């Protein structure tokens, strides 16, 4: 596929997205008319100028400390998330579709969580295997029978989307526990506004800087009833957490204290913060701590990060937690395969954004198919995050494939398999000029009574040539994501 017709361009003239769907140019069938003006402006830029501005951004990010921490053997090093200055652009129409799809998905997952912690109809009706839910290590029996405000469990959701060769968006993964990355969405936009005001002028880009307000509104909405002015806080594992910058960012944007477990105490099943004037009540907590670390009395007894007794305060309805305890069972990679059926079951709708075709290796047919087509498939362990443990068939060596086969046979229910999705590409600044690099998209949805989706989301880009893995821990970077204003 060659670049579809557009304005003749200097900077982009030799750009070739190859066989993949391109985010800036579209495809022959789906040309990206909405990016015409942006392409024209990009073309007018000189490559060295672009590089220089990109370097300005990276220095600025480092100085501002917009970084994550990478731990090596003995050192903790501050790294910026590499930022690519060529934006990823989504039309108003595409966005309307994605927004509806994300909202549908989070609605279904919340219904699912309420169901499995109450009547378990979906299990009784045999739509999802019972052991997949109750045997899941993220299923929390402590949540059974407990009512949460608005029946909302996943208040903050990050949905990983990819775009295949035909330009169809598909859900790759749900993140319903502690999704991160939203701070980069907002900070990337700030950077672009400072360094590329000329590129953005009069384009009409939907703003992203009200995320903090929306999050605070949700945290207030879910606070215990009868508290007139609820105290909200963000609970962080502390400065050594690799996402600490994001915790700072969100606490600051919400204007609430960033607390650690050691700042909190539970007395009479109520949660308090230690302040300069003694204990002050706390009502609503955005926790960036996994269930397992939240309460050493209820979960991992070795956790020093949590707050002893907080589960009981939560169960009594004296404190709100976002996300709720026990959401991990909904973003499990095996449960993921059943989400389309879940949507049908609870909402009687077809999924607006389809899944990637997924085979769940606990099912004998699926296992056999996976073993027979190992060299064509991506095999993923269900319990890992961050791109670890993945075998990409077409790129694996013989030994790696055999290793994968052995693991599959030893513990089939720990794996799913998917066809290789040819992630879409986006023009990206590299050492050798503007080249296509693979991208994904993680929109963020906030839900209390209703769901609100932040326009756009985090576009992660695989900076290494040819690689499909976009995770920051594996050398990925990010791009500003522009959702254009206008009628859908």
């Amino acid at each position, binding site marked *: 596929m060659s670049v579809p017709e557009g304005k003749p361009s200097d900077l982009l003239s030799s750009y070739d997205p190859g066989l993949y769907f391109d985010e800036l140019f579209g495809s022959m069938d789906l040309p990206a008319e909405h990016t015409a003006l942006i392409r024209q402006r990009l073309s007018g830029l000189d490559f060295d100028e672009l590089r220089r501005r990109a370097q300005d951004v990276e220095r600025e990010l480092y100085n*501002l400390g917009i970084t994550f921490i990478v731990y090596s053997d003995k050192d903790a090093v501050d790294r910026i998330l590499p930022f690519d200055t060529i934006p990823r652009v989504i039309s108003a129409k595409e966005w309307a579709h994605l927004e509806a799809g994300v909202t549908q998905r989070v609605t279904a997952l919340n219904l699912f969580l309420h169901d499995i912690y109450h009547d378990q109809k979906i299990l009784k009706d045999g739509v999802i295997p019972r052991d997949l839910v109750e045997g899941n290590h993220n299923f929390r029996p402590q949540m059974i029978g407990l009512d949460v405000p608005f029946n909302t469990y996943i208040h903050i959701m990050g949905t990983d989307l990819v775009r295949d060769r035909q330009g169809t968006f598909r859900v790759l993964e749900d993140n319903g526990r502690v999704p991160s990355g939203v701070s980069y969405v907002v900070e990337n936009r700030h950077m672009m506004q400072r360094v590329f005001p000329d590129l953005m002028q009069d384009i009409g880009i939907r703003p992203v800087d009200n995320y903090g307000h929306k999050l605070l509104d949700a945290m207030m909405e879910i606070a215990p009833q009868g508290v007139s002015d609820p105290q909200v806080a963000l609970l962080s594992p502390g400065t050594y957490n690799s996402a600490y910058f994001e915790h700072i960012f969100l606490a600051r944007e919400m204007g609430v*204290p960033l607390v*650690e477990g050691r*700042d909190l105490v539970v007395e009479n099943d109520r949660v308090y913060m230690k302040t*300069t*004037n003694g204990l002050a009540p706390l009502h609503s907590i955005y926790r960036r701590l996994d269930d397992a670390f939240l309460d050493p009395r209820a979960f991992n007894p070795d956790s020093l990060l949590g707050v002893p007794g907080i589960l009981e305060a939560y169960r009594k309805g004296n404190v709100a937690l976002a996300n709720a305890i026990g959401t991990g069972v909904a973003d499990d990679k095996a449960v993921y395969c059943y989400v389309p059926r879940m949507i049908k079951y609870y909402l009687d709708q077809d999924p607006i954004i389809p899944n990637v075709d997924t085979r769940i290796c606990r099912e004998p047919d699926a296992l056999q198919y996976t073993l027979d087509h190992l060299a064509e498939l991506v095999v993923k362990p269900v319990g890992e995050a961050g791109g670890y443990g993945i075998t990409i068939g077409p790129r694996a060596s013989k030994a790696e494939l055999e290793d994968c086969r052995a693991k599959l046979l030893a513990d089939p229910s720990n794996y799913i398999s998917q066809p290789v999705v040819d992630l879409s590409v986006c023009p990206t600044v590299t050492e050798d000029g503007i080249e296509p690099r693979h991208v994904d998209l993680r929109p963020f949805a906030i839900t209390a009574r209703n769901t609100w989706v932040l326009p756009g989301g985090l576009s992660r880009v695989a900076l290494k040539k040819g690689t499909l893995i976009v995770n920051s821990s594996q050398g990925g970077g990010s791009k500003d994501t522009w959702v254009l204003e206008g009628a859908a």
Partner: protein
Amino acid sequence: MNLLARYAENIFWMARYMERAENLARILDVHESFARDTRGATNWFSIVQLNADEKDFFSRHDRPTATAVIHYYMFDTQNQNSLLSMLRMARENARTLRPWISTEMWTQINVFHNKLLEMSAKGIATQNLSKVCTWIKEECQTHAGITEGTFYRDQGWYFYQMGKYIERADQTTRLLDIKYHTLLPSPVEVGSTLDVSQWTTVLRSTAGYHAFRRVYPRGMSPTTVAGFMLFNEGFPRSVVMCVRQIDGLLTRMRSRYDLRGGSNAMERVDELLAALLSRPIESVLRDGLHEYLDWIQLQLNVVTTEIAQAFFGMDAPLAVQSQSQ
């Protein structure tokens, strides 16, 4: 709005580390000036003595050469009292406080620390020490200016100011002590050209020379200089000036925010101020300046402990406290 006990502690210590860094830069700078004088290498050892770092220093160095001492106080990360360690601690506190302090405050400390870290890889030649010390002093002053201009004035501001003034009072006593340790002249030398030039250097290191001249246009004696640095009511680095500030800050903070704790701290500050105001400098010098300075340092530590107990949470770790007493 409530202030987290841990934040109050971090703010207090961030201010102290920045103030301490500025003063160490001043002390190193003064020593370089002295080292250019006739007394040679022993001068460098007095900095080690001043900070009571002898044991730690000699565990890694044979002799207190200029190079060894400068490295030890500039870049040695094993030394908690090195500039790089102080900046790291200031930065760690600032990093924790990022939701609370202004972005500009954080960015300046972050960049300052990173530059110092880069410099540590190269090291510095003795002849460049003064230039580097000036740079550090100016970065600390930039921090003070940014803080003045951007830090939101709530409870946190009071803890910042109290930290700064406690540290400054402590450091002024240390600067004065240098003269005691290093430069105590033999009776013959009192009033000699050398003696006067050394007192002048002490004053200049605190940017107090011109102010001193305005108060004492003629003559300079240990009595007038020490008296000026301890008791002058207009000199921003005098001990009395600092303790008066602490006293006022603590009083206003407790009443404005209706804080229950802190009455012990209040009493201690009042006692210290009263004691400072009750003794003429002549009597202080007669009974021993060094002992008097030690006593002030001890009182400032007691005040810090009382503030910590009242406001920083009962089980708050005080690990960041690295007072080398």
